Every structure is written in C-alpha cells, then in structure tokens.
C-alpha cells in the first residue's frame, strides 16, 4: 500500500487557501472600485438631470491666492442659474442653457459690468468611461452629512491631482466637490449649505444675442489651417494619459491679434489646452508691409492712440512743480522683446501656462501639468510635414 504524502498535501492545501484568499480579496477590491466608478457615473448624470435649489459656498484658487464666495444656485434638466452673493462676481448671474453659458451683469450698473457680459458655447459634457478608467482611480472612502443630508464620499486620484465628492445617497447629486493639484493644493471647492431637491428646474429663458466679435466653433485641423493666416502647429508630444478631444477655431474679426486656434486635450475630467494665434509684431515700421486689411488698421490706430496718450500731460517725465523733483520715469515692458525672450510661465486658474513664439505663431499651453511638461510640449510643436 502506497504511503500518503501528508507533507506535500499540507503544503498544497495551504497554497490553495492563500491563493483563494488572494483572489477573494482582489475580487472584493474590484467590486468596491466598480461601485465607486458607478457612483461617479451616477453623479455625472445627476449633475445634468437633477433639479435642485439652494446655497453654495465656493473657494477657488486664483493667481493672487484663494477666494471664497457664496451663491444661490438653481439647476435641473441641463440648465442652471447661479446668483453670486459675494466675491468678485457679486451681484452677477451666470446661466447655462443648451450648452451655452452667459453672464448677466448687475442691475442698474450697466457701464461697470459691460466687460463682464460674456457668452460661450461650452457644449454638453459627456463622461468618457474608457479615458476615465484609464487615468482616474475612484474609491468610496466613507459617509458624511452635507447640507443636512446623508452623502457617500468618493475620492478619485488621477494624473497629478485628485477629486473628492460627497454624493447625496438618494439622488447621487454631488453636494460637495473638492479638486486638488499635484501638491495637494486646493484648486476649487464647492459645498452646498442649504439644499432643496423638491423643486422644478429653472425656467427656460432667452439667452442674449451672441457677441458678434467672437465665434468659437469645433472644426477639423484641416479647416483650422485653411481658416487662419498663420502656420498652425501640432504637438508631437503630450504627457501620458491625455487624449485629443477636438480642435476649435475662435474667430475674432475685430481683434488686432486675429483668430485663435485651440487644440483641446482631456484626461477624462480636466482639459489641457494648446492655443495658437499669429504673432503680431509691435513695431509699426517693421510690420507695416507685412499685414494688410482691417486688423492692421486697427492695430495701427491702437498704436497711434498709445503714442498720443504718452505725449499727453501727466505721462512720461513732466517737469515737476516748484521745489519738487520730477517723478522718476515709469518702468514699461517692451512686449515684443518679452515675446521674443522665449518661454514665459504664468499662473492661471485650473492650470498654469507657458507660451513661446515659434516663427510666426504664438503658442500658449495651459493645463494642470508641470512646467517641464509644458515646455516639452512647446519643444515638440511642428507644422504640417
């Protein structure tokens, strides 16, 4: 009779148990992760469809620091109206309807808010599941009371940043959203302090007439190249995880700098924009023969006004009053020289920026990526072969 190898059998049994345990654990984790992904999808749907009204507190990082402001928000069926109660936008309303966003200035203060009357076609945001899954990892991290309601807290980490949301357990509407950058610095944070889901969606209103001086439209890169009078470049390198969304043409017939071109990339939740426009030299003697038409006339008129302005009393280096030293000359920056100095780096909202003049094209890269990555994109910009 053959002897049973108890030792081998024991080792095999232990190995099998460990393997089963590992598989079981992995399965559980996957289930939790999938649950979080599903919650994120439901949150995106709720943002579009759920009718809700209440008060929010928002903190946003701007180049000068953080700003906190409060607002009344009413949203539903893809529309919203936000009435700002404090902060730089106090008294203004921002509307969104059918993919268009516009600003309504303060009442009885038309002149002061003339410049704030903006309008943009932002389109309808769609969740791209593959891109989101590839770049962002979401997990459920707990529960929390927000605005007097129970929420499930979901945290996602992506390439150089994180997003934390507190989703209402009944509607999945995000009652809290916090975005942070690569160094865990706050980008923006919004929390509902009062919330009412038992409301009708905001009424449909007529948006103001479109601004004639600016038109943004989605076009192919070929159409972009055919529409502008400067060389449109394409990045040959983009950081991993970012995918080209689409090209846009921003036509500005009245603007001295002419049309702009934008290549927009996405990591599933955030944009990376590469903006291009023709380089317009500042020296009138140098470019008077280079460009023709209304843009050039406008530019020359502006330059003439600037020169007249500098010759007016109160500017330049006027003789001082009796017994006083004349004021020191004002420090000015030669923008042409600045442009030709090479890449410049700037702080912005939702992403920092770098710019560079490449032959006759000014290229500006804005996004939540590092300065080195922005420079590398600029290094790799190339024209059509």
């Amino acid at each position, binding site marked *: 009779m053959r002897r049973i190898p108890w030792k081998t059998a024991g080792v095999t049994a232990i190995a099998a148990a460990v393997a089963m345990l590992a598989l079981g654990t992995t399965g559980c984790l996957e289930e939790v992760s999938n649950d979080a992904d599903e919650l994120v999808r439901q949150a995106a749907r709720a943002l579009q469809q759920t009718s809700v009204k209440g008060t929010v507190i928002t903190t946003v990082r701007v180049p*000068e620091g953080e700003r906190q*402001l409060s607002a009344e928000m009413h949203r539903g069926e893809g529309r919203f109206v936000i009435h*700002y109660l404090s902060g*730089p936008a106090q008294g203004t309303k921002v509307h969104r309807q059918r993919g268009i966003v516009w600003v309504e200035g303060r009442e009885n203060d038309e002149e002061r808010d003339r410049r704030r009357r903006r309008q943009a076609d932002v389109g309808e945001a769609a*969740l791209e599941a593959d891109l989101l899954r590839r770049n962002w990892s979401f997990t459920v991290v707990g529960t929390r009371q927000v605005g007097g309601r129970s929420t499930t807290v979901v945290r996602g980490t992506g390439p150089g940043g994180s997003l934390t949301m507190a989703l209402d357990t009944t509607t999945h509407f995000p009652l809290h959203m916090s975005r942070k950058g690569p160094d865990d610095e706050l980008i923006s944070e919004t929390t509902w302090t009062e919330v009412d889901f038992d409301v009708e969606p905001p009424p449909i209103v007529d948006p103001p007439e479109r601004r004639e001086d600016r038109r943004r439209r989605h076009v192919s890169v070929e159409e972009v190249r055919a529409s502008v009078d400067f060389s449109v470049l394409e990045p040959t390198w983009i950081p991993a995880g970012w995918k080209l969304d689409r090209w846009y043409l921003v036509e500005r017939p009245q603007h001295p700098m002419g049309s702009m071109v934008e290549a927009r990339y996405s990591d599933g*939740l955030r944009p990376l924009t590469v903006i291009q426009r023709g380089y317009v030299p500042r020296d009138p003697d140098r470019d008077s023969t280079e460009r023709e038409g209304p843009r050039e006339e406008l530019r020359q008129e*502006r330059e003439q006004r600037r020169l007249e302005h500098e010759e007016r009393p109160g500017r330049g280096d006027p003789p001082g009053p009796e017994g006083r030293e004349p004021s020191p000359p004002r420090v000015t920056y030669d923008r042409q020289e600045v442009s030709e100095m090479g890449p410049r780096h*700037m702080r*912005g909202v939702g992403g920092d920026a770098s710019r560079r003049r490449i032959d006759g094209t000014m290229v500006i890269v*804005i996004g939540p990526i590092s300065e080195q990555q922005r420079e590398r994109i600029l290094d790799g910009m190339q024209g059509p072969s």
Partner: protein
Amino acid sequence: MRCRQVCDRLTEYQLDLLEDRERAGVEAHLAECADCRAELVALQKLDGLLEPMEEAEAPANLWSGVKRRMEPRRAPLWQLWRQPARQAIAVAAAMLLVVAGLWLGLRGRPGDPEDYNLLASDYQEQHVVAQWSQPLADDAALGAIYAGLYDTGDVQ
C-alpha cells in the same frame, strides 16, 4: 480728467468713495485709457492681498502663558557671559532670514507683471470654457472665475 488726476483717485474709486460726478469722470477716462485701466487692475490685485484675515479665537490659557513669560527670570551666573553672544547670533540669524526671504521672494516672482494680464483675459477665458466642457465640472467655481474675468485688451 487727465491720467494723473485719475490715478490719484483710483483708490477711492475702487472703494466706491467718490461722488457720482467724480466717479463718472474716472470711468469715462478709464474707458479710453488702457494704462489707467492697468493701474486699476494692479490696485485691485494689491487690494486682494490686503484683505483682512479672519478673526481667530485665542486659546483660553493664552494670557496666563504670556504673563508667565513676562515675569523676570534670573539667569544662572554661569550663563550671563553668553547673553551678548546670543543676542548677536539672534540678530545675525534674523538678518539672514530677511535677506533669504527677500532673495527667495524676488526669485520666485514672475519676471513680467504683464504675464498675469495675459492669462486673466482671452486665454484664461478659453481655458475656463474648456474646463466647463468636461464632466463633473465645478459650475459654481467656474462661474465665479468666468464672471470675474477682467478684459485687459490686446495683450501678447
């Protein structure tokens, strides 16, 4: 109004302290004068930096701690010889910190103030719109930026 008159009144203008007539004069000038607008933008940025901090409640035992530290303490005789040296070291360290702070501050500052204007206008608007086209956008934060953008004209 001339530029100098307007610049002299920009602080009051920003704080809404001007009378209607003067304010109208300033606004009429600002509408035409890019340099004075730039002055106003710079003043607004400075004003933002000077916003008062939130009041913080002092800890309950703060005063007793301060009082205890205010009471004279007699140093041991063997430590007395060290005091001038310690003061000198403290002064040198403070000066070093000030110099280092200034150096770092100047080094960390962007080379061109125009850079801020650049991104605060057309390009910043473009990027805000791009953020809005993404799912799960923070509408309240983006709306505040969008409505608060300052159009600074044709910056390079």
